[in-house]
Structure formats: C-alpha cells, structure tokens
C-alpha cells in the first residue's frame, strides 16, 4: 500500500533500531478528520449559543473621540454590545505568560482599542446577537467618532525624526530590560551584537559583497479563521472553547486581560485549523467572554476572512543591509547586518530572533549586528513559522550566492567551507551543540537533483540554507493503563499536524506496544498538567519526552505488580521489548494489564517536564525554476528540501512539515504580500488577492531527512516544523539569478517586479 506514496529518502543514524519509531501508523484522529466528524472551533454547538461580530476601524491611525452603542443595543435580536470600557484598567502591567513577557495593556488594547486605533481593521467594539447576520447588521449602527492622525506604514519612514508617533511615550529599549532612549520614537527595541574587529576584517577581505533587501508583510494564511466561544456562568466560572495553539496560554492571557483568577477560567481546546504561530495570541476570547457575561448566554465569535488578514498578527515587512567578506579561499572573515523589522501597531515584534539568526549558519569571526523593532500603522506582527529567520536567510543566502559566483566556487562548497558545526560560536554568543548542517549540505551536494543537469533557456537553479533554534518549554502528560492492554494518554498539546500520534509512538516505543494501543486525548486546562504552546517545533520533542517519562513510570509501577505475582523484588524484574521477566517468569505488557485490577488496581502515571536540551534544526533547499522573461512570472520546476531532523518519529509527518514549510516559503518568495493604499488600508484582504500557492502552482516537493540525533533526547528528537520555511526565498532568488542574471533584492518576486528588473537590466524582452 505505501509504495504509492513515494516516501522521502531517510539518511538514518546507524545505531537506530527502534520498533515503533520511524514507522507510519495512521493518526489516531484520522478517521474523524476524513469523515467530517472532528470538532473544530466553529463546530462547537451549545444550548442557547448566540453569535458575535467585531466592529473594526476604518482608519489606520486615529483618536477615538466617542463610541455610541445605543442604537445597536436597541436593534432587535441584539443581546449585548461591548467596547474596551468593559475591560479592567491594566495600566502598564507586564505579565510573564509562559512564553515570554507581554504588556497586558497592549494585549487588551489589541483585542478592543482603548483610546486610539493604530491600524485599519483594529477591533473597536463587538456585538452578540441571535445570529451572525443580526450581529453584523448591528455593527453598522455603532457610531464611532474618530479624529484621524497622520500615518506611517514603512519601516524606514517610521524610524525618521518627525515621523508620526504611534505611542507618544515609547522610549527605545537600548538594553533589553534596561536603559532607554531619551526621546520618544517608533523604535521599540534596538539589539546590538559585536564580535571581533569587523572594520579591520573587511579591510583585509579578498572580496566584500554588500546589498540591501526589502520584504513585505506576509500572513500565516491558516485556512480556519480565528474563532472562540465563551460562556461566563452565573457562578463566575468562565469556559472558553478555543482554536488556539496553546490552551494554557489562552487561559493565562484571557485571565490577565479580564483580571480574573486562572482558576476561574477553563479553556477547552478544539481541533485547530492551522496556526503557524498566528494562533498563539488571543483576539476574541476576552471579547466573547465579556459579551457572554453581559447576556448570560454562550457567545461564539468567528472572524471574517478580511478580519483575519486585517486584525490578526502577520509577520513583519523588513529592510536589511547585509555585508560579508571572504578571504581568497572563500573563508568568511567579516559580517555586518543592519536590520529593521516593522512590529506593527504595538512594540514587541520578531527582531530578536532576526538578529540571532542572521549569521547562524556560518562561522564568522568578526561580526557586527544591529537590529531594530519599529512600530508602524499596521496590524501587530506576530510569530510565523521560524519568526524573523526567513527574512535574514533570504538576504544572507543571496549574498553568499553572490560571493560563490565571484569566487567561482560551487555554492554548496562555499557553504560547506563556512558552515556552523559543533563548537562553532554564534555571533550572539552561544556555542553550537551537535548539529547537522554539514551532513545536510553534503546530502544536498550528493542528491540526484543537484547532480542532474538543468537545461533550457531562462532556467536556473538555486540553493540556500536555513536555521531555526527550536525550543523546549513545559509539557505534562497523564496516562491510564487499561485492563485490555491499551493506554489512555492525556496531554495538553493541541494537535495541528499529527502530534497525538508522534507523542503516542514515543510512549508505545517505551512500553513495547503498538502505537494503535495508545489512545491519546488532547485534554482541557482542568484535566491535564500545565503544557506550553504548540509552537517552536517543540511538541514532538517536549511533550514526547513527557510521554516517555510517563512510560517509565508505568513500567516501574508494573514491575511492582509483576514482583507481586512472582513473589520477588521489583528490582529484580526486567523489562524489555514489551515483556516483563524475572528468572524463568515472564509476562507480556498486555497480559500483565489484565492482572492489574487484581494486584492493586489499574495504574495511572504522570509526568511534567521542562527539558532544556532542545537543539537546532538546519535545512538546505534546492530549487529549479523557469522565468517567463516576457511576463516576469516564475514557475517552480523541481524542489528538494533536506533537513537535519533528529530522529523522525513519524517520517510522513516530518516530510509533511518539510513540504508544507517549503510551499509557504515559495508563496512568500513569489506572490504573497500585504498591499496597502496611501491611507494604510489593506487592498487585498481576501484569499483571492492574497495569493497563497494553489496545487497548480507547485511541483511535488522532494524531501530528504538526515537523522543526526539530539543527544539530549532519549530518542534523539529535534524540532522539525519551522526550519523548512526559512530557505525557500533565498533558494528561489538564487535560482532567478541563475536563470536571468538578475539579483532580486525585493520580496515577493512577483511578476511585475521580476519583469521590471529584467527590463531595467536590458537583457529581457521588453
């Protein structure tokens, strides 16, 4: 059966002899998802449920002078109307919400604007009504008086003296957590790293390449709009059904915005229709909660698609200047980066990872990095798959390609010569543990794709590398052993791409049973221990580790039961391959399960972990494409994604991450961008005009998994999910260069941009 599916090449660790890991069981939630029975956020149906809608600002920057909701409240069928006046005053409180600090006033003001709107589409008020049609009708009856203010949407413009200020009191953090600039500006943070003597190193370099790059705002593009349902009971208990990447995070954020104890909030995670970082922040939960408190009914709000584009957090536009110097042999000796990312309406964007990722693939002795986070009148930017890393990889990988050309060196050889490896010190300080960039570059060089000649006019090949940190964070799991030999596993990681199964497989491997004998459930915040978000490529690593710990606890408890049966010491019972044994006695896991209730009752085990040993992921992509020089349109012909993935627990889902990330990166590279008019209005907030790739736009995406195990995980798991979006824009830009001779320094490389570059260059047809 599986031969039809053409699986990836896997370069295995020779010591690997797992029974369950590396197989491809059907996911536990699979049948529900192919029959339409799985319950996603918008599928929640409750007695008395009413529907909400959000009023959004038509202005990109304005003071709110007044809001009159009386007419809306009087509209037949309307049950409640709310504005930020119903939120508690949060002052300037910073809360540490598990994944990092959040300014609560900003979080709340993004859910419902307080005294200013900072972007077109900023939520201003909300209505609950008998149905969504009535709720939307009522939005038209809310009268908001705005005093328009000058706007700024371009990151460099926003940094200039005299630019319109979004936050009058914003002083740049010159040192994270410390010193601030004296005069207010739109720059919320300035990061700075320096190593060695960059000036002298550039002076001594054989070749120096310096280029400027720009990228535009792009959205995660999940197909399911944000949706939340809240029911505020008369006893003060708030229940939220959420489509979120982290139910505990959603609980914390909601309780902080509403200033109610977390014990009063239960978040029930629904199936989630994609997130990619965009469903970590909350938007609707506190709004639905307040509406529910006001009308006494459960309230569901689903965003409209334009609401998703205009009112949630895309990832930033950027300006980047990159300079790299090499010696005669091609060794990189000096690097300089100056980066400005727009953070959108509120401070706190993704420049942090940007400055740390910029030179992360290479060993560069002398380097100097500056990065700025800049507020502009656009939606508050948020994480999108390897946040901040794709931007810099596009820029740096383009410059590396140019260096290879000038050195007349194979672009993979140049990368191999300079690649980061175990012991390499990143410019921001940390030293790499065991990583697999070298192995991945070598696999790329030896791949049939790279070795096959590419023929035909206007065709080109490009390669690029990419990096992501991956994270650990906290995960918990509880397991109940059943008399029939199966195990019910409760865990708290919302499953976006098959993680129920990748976690269950690790428990199954530990217990020596089949993956199908584990029955995983994603539990609500009252039913499982604290678990951080599904994000950062952490779930298979950290929640998987919790499952392994649970498995060890089960084995140790079952050894005691076996010892009872055999009247021996538990310490003398051995466990291997699903069999408990002592001397001549032996019993299988399943058989022992049947005896549990008679030896002291069925077993429950639990584990809570906070692993520190997560480690990085590196990818190398190869892209062949053809440019229609008459129109500037780019067609991807062949694409291969290779990645150092640690142990691939369920290889199909690892391949899926590589393929999905690659295609998101292809979309970003070629056509995706927010287009704004001079008033700061997004022109293309639809899935028609925000052009994500369709099935017809991409070829099959070939994958190679290189299993360089993570020494800090019992099964060698590394994170996988984020790295694959990082290399594509660089690989495509390099392929466009090879096809046309033109180096594209702007994303997206959309047909008009490519055509105009070709025309200006004078090489192409007019």
């Amino acid at each position, binding site marked *: 059966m599986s031969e039809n599916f053409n699986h990836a090449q896997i370069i295995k660790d020779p010591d690997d002899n797992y029974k369950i890991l590396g197989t*491809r069981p059907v996911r536990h*939630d699979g049948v529900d*998802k*192919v029959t339409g029975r799985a319950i996603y956020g918008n599928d929640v149906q409750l007695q008395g449920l009413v529907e909400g809608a959000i009023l959004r600002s038509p202005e990109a920057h304005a003071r709110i002078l007044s809001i009159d909701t009386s007419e809306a409240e009087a509209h037949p069928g309307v049950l409640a109307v709310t504005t930020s006046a119903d939120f508690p005053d949060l002052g300037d409180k910073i809360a540490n919400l598990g994944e990092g600090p959040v300014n609560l006033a900003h979080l709340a003001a993004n859910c419902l604007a307080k005294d200013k709107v900072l972007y077109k589409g900023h939520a201003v008020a909300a209505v609950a009504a008998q149905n969504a049609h009535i709720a939307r009708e009522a939005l038209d009856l809310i009268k908001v008086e705005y005093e328009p203010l000058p706007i700024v949407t371009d990151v460099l413009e926003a940094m200039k003296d005299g630019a319109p200020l979004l936050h009058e009191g914003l002083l740049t953090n010159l040192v994270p957590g410390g010193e601030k600039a004296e005069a207010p500006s739109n720059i919320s943070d300035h990061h700075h790293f320096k190593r060695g003597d960059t000036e002298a190193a550039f002076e001594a370099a054989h070749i120096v390449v310096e280029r400027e790059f720009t990228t535009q705002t792009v959205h995660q593009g999940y*197909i399911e709009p944000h949706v939340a349902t809240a029911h505020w009971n008369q006893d003060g208990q708030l229940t939220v059904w959420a489509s979120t990447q982290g139910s505990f995070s959603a609980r914390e954020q909601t309780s902080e915005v509403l200033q109610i104890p977390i014990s009063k909030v239960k978040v029930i995670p629904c199936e989630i229709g994609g997130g990619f970082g965009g469903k970590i922040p909350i938007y609707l939960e506190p709004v639905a909660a307040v509406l529910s408190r006001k009308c006494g009914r459960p309230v569901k709000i689903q965003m409209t*698609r334009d609401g998703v584009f205009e009112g949630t957090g895309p990832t930033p536009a950027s300006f980047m200047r990159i300079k790299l110097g090499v010696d005669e042999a091609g060794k990189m000796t000096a690097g300089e980066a100056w980066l400005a990312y727009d953070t959108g309406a509120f401070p706190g964007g993704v420049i942090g990872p940007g400055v740390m990722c910029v030179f992360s693939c290479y060993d560069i002795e002398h380097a100097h990095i500056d990065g700025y986070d800049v507020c502009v009148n656009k939606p508050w930017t948020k994480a999108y798959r390897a946040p901040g890393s794709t931007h810099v990889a596009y820029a740096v990988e383009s410059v590396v390609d140019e260096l290879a050309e000038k050195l007349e060196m194979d672009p993979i050889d140049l990368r191999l010569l300079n690649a980061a490896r175990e012991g390499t010190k990143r410019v921001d300080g940390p030293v790499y543990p065991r990583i697999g960039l070298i192995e991945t570059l070598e696999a790329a060089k030896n791949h049939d794709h790279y070795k096959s000649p590419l023929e035909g006019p206007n065709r080109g090949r490009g390669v690029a590398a990419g990096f992501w940190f991956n994270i650990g964070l906290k995960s918990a799991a509880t397991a109940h052993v059943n008399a029939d030999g199966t195990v019910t596993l409760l865990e708290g990681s919302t499953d976006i791409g098959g993680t129920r199964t990748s976690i269950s497989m690790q428990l199954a491997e530990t217990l020596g049973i089949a993956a199908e004998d584990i029955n995983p459930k994603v539990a609500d915040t009252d039913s499982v221990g604290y678990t951080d978000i599904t994000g950062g490529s952490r779930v298979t690593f950290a929640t998987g580790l919790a499952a392994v710990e649970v498995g060890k606890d089960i084995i140790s408890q079952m050894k005691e039961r076996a010892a009872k049966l055999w009247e021996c010491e538990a310490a003398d019972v051995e466990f291997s391959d699903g069999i408990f044994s002592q001397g001549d006695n032996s019993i299988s896991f399943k058989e022992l399960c049947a005896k549990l209730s008679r030896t002291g009752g069925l077993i429950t085990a639990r584990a809570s972990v906070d692993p520190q040993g997560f480690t990085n992921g590196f990818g190398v992509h190869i892209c062949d494409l053809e440019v229609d020089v008459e129109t500037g349109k780019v067609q991807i012909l062949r694409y291969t994604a290779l990645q150092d993935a640690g142990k691939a627990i369920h290889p199909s*889902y690892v391949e*899926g991450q590589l393929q999905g990330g690659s*295609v998101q990166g292809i979309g970003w590279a070629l056509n995706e961008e927010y287009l704004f008019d001079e008033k700061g209005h997004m022109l293309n907030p*639809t899935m028609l005009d925000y052009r994500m790739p369709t099935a017809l736009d991409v070829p099959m995406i070939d994958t190679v998994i290189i299993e360089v195990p993570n020494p800090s995980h019992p099964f060698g798991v590394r994170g996988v999910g984020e790295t694959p979006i990082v290399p594509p824009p660089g690989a495509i830009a390099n392929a466009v260069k090879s096809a046309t001779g033109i180096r594209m320094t702007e994303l997206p490389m959309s047909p008009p941009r490519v055509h105009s570059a070709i025309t200006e260059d004078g090489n192409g047809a007019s």
Partner: protein
Amino acid sequence: MGKKIHVSTTINGEAVEFLCEARQSLLEIIRDTLTLTGAKEGCNNGNCGACTVLMNGVPVDSCLVLAVEAEGAELETVESIANEEHLHPLQECFLEGAALQCGICTPGFLVSAKALLDGHPEPTEEEIRFELSGNLCRCTGYDKIVRAVQAASERMKEVK
C-alpha cells in the same frame, strides 16, 4: 428577522426539510441547522474551497449558494463519502499517505477529489492539481494530497 422560507431537499440520500431566511447560505444551513459540520468555512467568499459540497453531482462552494436554491436539489457532503462500514478509498489514502495535517481543508478536498475521480478515474498529476486548485491547503504543500488522489485512483481501479 426575515420571513422564513420552507425548503425541501435531499442531503446524503435522505429527504430533508428546513426553514431558512433568503440571505442564509447553504453552508450556514447545513452546518448550523442540519448540524453537518464537516463542510468548513474558510473564507466565506468562494476562494478556498473548504465548504465544497456536491449539488446535483457538481462541486460548488456552499458559501456561495443560497440555502433556498437547494429546493429540489440533491446534495452530498463529506459525511456521505464513507459508507456505514468502510471508508472510501480516497479517505483511506488520505490517512495512509498523511495527506492532512490540521485537517480543516480535508473535507473540501475529499469532496472535490471524489467528484474528480467519479468523472475522470485516471487523472494525470497536472489534471489533479488543476481540478483541486479551487481548494487551498496551507499545511501540506499539496504533495501528499496529490499522491493520495493518485493512490486512490489506483486502488479504485483494482477494486473494479
């Protein structure tokens, strides 16, 4: 609220009657009134295909059909693809080939793919990609979806 209109239709082989307002979409009615929540709302604008159902055998975006237009029609949703005992080969192949990650687009893809294979049992890769281009997926990069449709086409041929 508007006056309700009575509509008689057939959904997944069963005669069904419902009341709706003229402005209500077929998607709203099948999800909220008939509680067949397999069809999903992704864009409510005809651009993503997550709400695809068959209307008289032809795939349509149910967000762009008024529920009143279903009078006398034969409708099929993702809930009808499997029979009582077995998944459809497409569903099996989507699962075995890991052709879904978050799964929100899956019902729409399955309905479109079923219509494709019903009318065209051995499509080329290009034809699959073309006919499924009205269905957006953001997770898979389409590779495994296309392969699952190819595998299902093979499997259905074997069954015959």
